């Protein structure tokens, strides 16, 4: 089994150049369970039933994740510390946001990213500052990873004018154009064609930018996913479709939302390159996404990347999460990538740097809360100018 797990859990899209042919060509040499590097094996590889990342990890590049160096500079401890810092910032930001929500300082919906941090952090690591990133309503993690200040983020949650969207958007609508964060969107799937559009603009202008769009596995059945994929494949747009498959669409496990558990199989019908893996560590995520970004940047070809992950909190603050057992949750928390990174880095003898980072983050989040608390609220005068760019039309 481990071998097969590795095949399916670690399936890699073929290098872009070879990937780009018609799907038939790609699959011409399909074999029962080909190893990484042959997407042809994709349909052939047995689908992993739902499994804990643990198994995947066992079969994964475990050791190399320590970042305690060895030869590979791209996995240096310095890099790992940077990733740890960003993941911790997101974790602590959201833990405090949850507290503030309980205190009534934040209203509406609050969807936490806790547990999925390595994805946003790894994604940012392979994107250029001027690339475009577009998210769902579960958008705090990506916004912070892209470089939005904790102050602007927390102030937005508090509905303050100093927030990233002037307090008009709230948790679901984090925008920071300057940092290539083109927003969080509330309609499932609705942002996918929009993301294909920013990629379209990059191709139109030849500006070399790549767009990365994120969505949950619950979005895969809706029409806009299909239309966005169809057009991106037909027009060869420089975009990476990242499906963060956290196994639940609100209270519904993926077995009840999809007839095929392997989301990446959808790419076959579009002749699109695809990748699929279970999250083990932040470097692994980065390396997979780097390949897809490279394909978009150099060949202007889209990729569908399915990342199996898990959210540790409810769908939103109002969700008690009765649909999953405490046991399942605990099992998954053992695989928390944030903790794994910490122990790997500590094991490599960098405890001091870790503690320094943790102290900084605490200060940063405390400051963000204070800033949000003390910031003024937006006034009615903002409403007209944010409804129309030009004169108001009534």
């Amino acid at each position, binding site marked *: 089994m481990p071998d097969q797990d590795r095949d399916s859990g670690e399936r890699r899209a073929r290098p872009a150049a070879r990937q780009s042919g018609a799907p038939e060509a790609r699959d011409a040499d399909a074999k029962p369970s080909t190893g990484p590097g042959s997407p042809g094996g994709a349909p052939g590889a047995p689908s992993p039933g739902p499994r804990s990342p643990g198994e995947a990890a066992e079969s994964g590049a475990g050791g190399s994740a320590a970042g305690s160096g060895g030869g590979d500079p791209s996995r240096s401890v310095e890099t790992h510390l940077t990733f740890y810092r960003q993941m911790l910032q997101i974790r602590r930001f959201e833990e405090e946001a949850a507290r503030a929500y309980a205190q009534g300082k934040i209203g509406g919906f609050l969807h936490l990213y806790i547990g999925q941090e390595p994805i946003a952090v790894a994604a940012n690591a392979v994107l250029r500052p001027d690339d475009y990133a577009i998210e769902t309503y579960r958008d705090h993690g990506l916004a912070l990873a892209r470089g939005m200040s904790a102050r602007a983020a927390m102030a937005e949650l508090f*509905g303050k004018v100093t927030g990233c969207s002037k*307090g008009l958007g709230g948790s679901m*609508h984090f925008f920071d154009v300057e940092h290539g964060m083109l927003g969080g969107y509330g309609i499932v799937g609705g942002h996918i064609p929009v993301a294909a559009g920013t990629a379209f603009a990059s191709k139109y202008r030849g500006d070399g930018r790549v767009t990365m769009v994120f969505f949950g596995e619950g979005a895969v*059945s809706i029409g806009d996913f299909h239309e966005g994929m169809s057009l991106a494949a037909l027009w060869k747009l420089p975009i990476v479709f990242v499906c963060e498959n956290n196994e639940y*669409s609100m209270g519904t496990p993926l077995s009840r939302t999809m007839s095929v558990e392997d989301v990446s199989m959808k790419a076959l019908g579009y002749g699109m390159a695809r990748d699929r893996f279970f999250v083990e560590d932040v470097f692994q995520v980065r390396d997979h996404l780097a390949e897809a970004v490279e394909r978009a940047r150099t060949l202007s070809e889209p990729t569908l990347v399915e990342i199996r992950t898990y959210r540790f909190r409810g769908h939103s603050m109002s969700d008690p999460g009765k649909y999953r057992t405490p046991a399942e949750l605990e099992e998954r928390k053992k695989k928390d990538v944030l903790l794994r990174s910490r122990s790997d880095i500590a094991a490599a003898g960098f405890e001091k740097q870790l503690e320094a980072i943790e102290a900084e983050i605490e200060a940063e989040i405390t400051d963000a809360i204070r800033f949000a608390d003390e910031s003024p*609220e937006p006034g009615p005068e903002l409403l007209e100018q944010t409804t129309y760019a030009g004169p108001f039309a009534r």
Partner: protein
Amino acid sequence: MSELRYREAVRAAMVEEMERDERVFLVGEEVGHYQGAYKVSEGMLERFGPKRVLDAPITESGFTGISIGAAMVGLRPIVEYMTWNFSAVAFDQILNNAAKVRQMSGGQLKVPIVLRAPNASARQVGSQHSHAMEHFYAHIPGLKVIAPSTPADAKGLLKTAIRDDDPVLFMESETLYNIKGEVPDSTEHLVPFGKAQVVREGRDVTIISYSRMVHVSLDAANQLAKEGIECEVIDLRSLRPLDEATMVQSVTKTHRAVVAHEGWPYGGVGAEVADRLQRLAFDELDAPVLRATQLDFPMPYNAKLEQYVIPQASRIIEKIREVLYQA
């Protein structure tokens, strides 16, 4: 009579009709195992099983279309959208199939389907999740649009809707789900469509409203009563068909009207009511028909701004003073 919450009244209507008619089923996101995003369908999966209470993936257009097809061949589907906002991705199914199949088939087919969900503003859920969708749907012939304000009407109108042979769009409200009210126990408690209700009598001005805004209108009426201004408050209950008689009768008495609803001012139900009143009661009106609506902006997240944009009792009172020329 039993005291039920609005949420429970909606559930009771569905449960009674599903007990009564095998052809009725409920489909929507999280309606089953999760017991409903707003717990409206709590317990129904256990009671009726997965065949009649179906959890759907996020495919509003898909399961709306499926329900239209099922209705065309004899079933009586109830579709729950998590909120009416999400019906926007099913807009074509509602406009071009639900409302058209009967005429396209020369009357061979009918589409007995109920589409229901909470509608309009919730609390700080932002611009994409705060739409008052009745203003789009009431425009369309072939559809019926209902918007109850009380538990008793919620039950009685939903039962009527489920037994109705035409597509009925049923507008609930997240902010009303917890209100309590006396509800007839009878399984034959059926409230007819097209009959508005005078929920408060008054001689000075008529406030015409529906759904959550009926309660806000009553609040405004009570405040003005302290000044001796007596408002008559009409709960439309049914937006299409619209009860012209009750509105005209009231305005013939008060000679003044203010329409209060959520959603934007341009077009929509409020404009239609104003149009009908000036047309049907032109000589009775001593002042223009005014409207207290959401301001003409997308709904902002900030709590104070949201309250500023949503119609409040204060806005209704302001409009009433205007039609009384007290402004």
